[in-house]
């Protein structure tokens, strides 16, 4: 009796395991696409996937089911490198997509030239979110080094978004002082004002919004808009700094995976559709800056003009920026060691 109970359990276990295996295999046969993305794009892609599916049915008469995976940009890239079979990646920074080539040869080295605008169909920038009425009177990056201001940002070591924050501040100081040493001191003084260093961007948002810690939150423009809209209208204001960085979240087909799965055509079309007017407007609706200047102009009220620079201009590309600033023993480590 006990033996049969055990064998029944064992059987159930084996069956379930087999189901899990075959389930994964089955899902491949339908027209599905796996888009591995980062956290703040959820709302945008939910709507975009429907738009694309409608387009694809109209065009090819085939139903498409786009599966989504969201997480921190870096850990999402690592999952793809380690075997998550993404058809396309839509990540926060080019460095993470570069890693797909550097560490696993999943894509060719020149991936970024395959689609228009550096493969970034939508862009964003880094802005400052302050509490209603701007009680600390924060106008620009300079105010972040003031002793009476507490700054919230996630940790650049673990968050892709935070790396944009850091580089934007550095770039501003570079423009203003024209001197790397001064830039170092400037960024150091900002991080000396950080009371809580969350590992991920949305955690930092919650620290600022829910725990009410800090006077200013350095954030993606789209995240700042979302916080204002979803978490408390009238409780926050967006301050656009005089100079900031052009954040280019890139997209790419994962060649090795689409060739194995035979989904290249679909994946390619999925990404190209991002550049159509319809998709560009969707991006604008979800607070991303459309890369098409005409569509961007339609949203002129929402997106004020900022003096934007790219990572290439200021830092000579992401690989360089990562190596100099964020890798172990880099500038950011020096800053941490100096202030703590």
């Amino acid at each position, binding site marked *: 009796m006990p033996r049969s109970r055990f064998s029944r359990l064992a059987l159930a276990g084996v069956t379930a395991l087999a189901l*899990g*295996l075959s389930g994964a*295999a089955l899902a491949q046969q339908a027209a599905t696409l796996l888009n591995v993305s980062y956290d703040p794009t959820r709302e945008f892609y939910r709507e975009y996937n429907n738009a694309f599916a409608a387009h694809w049915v109209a065009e090819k008469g085939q139903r498409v089911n786009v*599966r989504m*995976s969201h997480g921190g940009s870096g850990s999402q890239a690592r*999952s793809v490198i*380690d*075997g998550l079979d993404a058809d396309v990646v839509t990540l926060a920074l080019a460095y993470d997509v570069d890693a797909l080539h550097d560490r696993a040869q999943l894509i060719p080295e020149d991936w970024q030239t395959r689609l228009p605008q550096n493969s970034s169909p939508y862009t964003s920038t880094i802005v400052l979110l302050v509490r209603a009425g701007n009680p600390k009177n924060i106008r620009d990056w300079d105010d972040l080094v003031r002793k009476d201001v507490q700054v919230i940002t996630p940790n650049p070591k673990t968050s892709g978004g935070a790396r944009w924050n850091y580089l934007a501040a550095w770039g501003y100081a570079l423009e203003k002082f024209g001197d790397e040493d001064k830039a170092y001191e400037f960024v150091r003084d900002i991080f000396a004002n950080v009371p809580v260093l969350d590992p991920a961007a949305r955690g930092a948002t919650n620290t600022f919004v829910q725990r009410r810690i800090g006077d200013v939150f350095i954030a993606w423009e789209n995240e700042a808009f*979302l916080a204002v809209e979803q978490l408390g209208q009238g409780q926050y204001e967006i301050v656009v700094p005089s100079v900031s960085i052009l954040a280019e979240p890139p997209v790419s087909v994962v060649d090795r995976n689409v060739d194995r799965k035979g989904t290249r055509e679909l994946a390619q079309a999925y990404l190209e559709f991002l550049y159509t007017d319809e998709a560009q407007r969707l991006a604008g609706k979800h607070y991303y800056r459309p890369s098409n200047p005409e569509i961007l102009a339609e949203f002129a009220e929402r997106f004020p003009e900022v003096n934007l620079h790219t990572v290439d201009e200021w830092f000579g590309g992401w690989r360089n920026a990562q190596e100099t600033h964020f890798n172990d023993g880099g500038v950011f480590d020096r800053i941490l060691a100096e202030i703590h």
Partner: protein
Amino acid sequence: MSTIASHIHGTRAAAPTWRRATEEPAWVRRLLIGIALGFLSLFLVLPLTVVLYGAFEQGLQVWYAAITEPDAQAAIRLTLLVVAIVVPINLVFGVMAAWAIAKFEFRGKSVLITLIDLPFAISPVVVGLIFVILLGSQGWLGPWLAEHDLRVIFAVPGIIIVIAFGTMPFVARELIPLMQQQGKEEEESSLTLGANGWQTFWRVTLPNIKWGVIYGVILCNARAMGEFGAVAVVSGRIRGETNTMPLHIEVLYNEYLFTAAFAVSSLLAGLAIVTIAVKSLVDWRDERQRHQAAA
């Protein structure tokens, strides 16, 4: 009571001995209960209240909508599937390991016990890393698995393996101290009286270790449902497919859907109700058996 008693007996010595010798004075009892409740309030009841408050803040309908939404349903189904596989395996393992360790003396025993404990000591973060290094496509077995088109990591089997790893010790660890404390005299006399090993286990050992088994299974089950860190690394986080309940909760929280996040969390808190039910059932059966034996 005691004043009447001392009056009747007319001696002072009789007064304080009305309580049983194996009980503490009432003030000690109250103090201990007070300390225990104070500690549990701060660390258990209040955090739970936060979760439940968050879950039901916007009313039952919102709560119900959050747990019946398709992605939530998929996450619940996946979690139940994982638990249905992992808990029985670890139960069998736990009983066997505890039997070997508690009933026999052999060399290397403390090393073995320590190895059983090890999954507790390994950070979930490291557990994820271990299996990525072993099974990932850059890892040691990854290329072989890919060649045979076996999906382990970033699919359901990977989640099962990682959770089995993390919850392996619970039943064993619950039973080992209990069985060690009980010794082996009862089993030895049962065997001497002619029962075979299987009967001895079933009739003598199992009733003795029943509570240990129950606690072990409850803990193992709880942990299997709640495991997050390691699963997050190997799941791939595909919406509606490889998100377990904790991962789904994180997704909701990151979408600023706090009420929904707490609503799904409240289901995990509902496990406590299952715990009460199971323990009451066993208590009730014990009671009935005792009555039958007495009659």
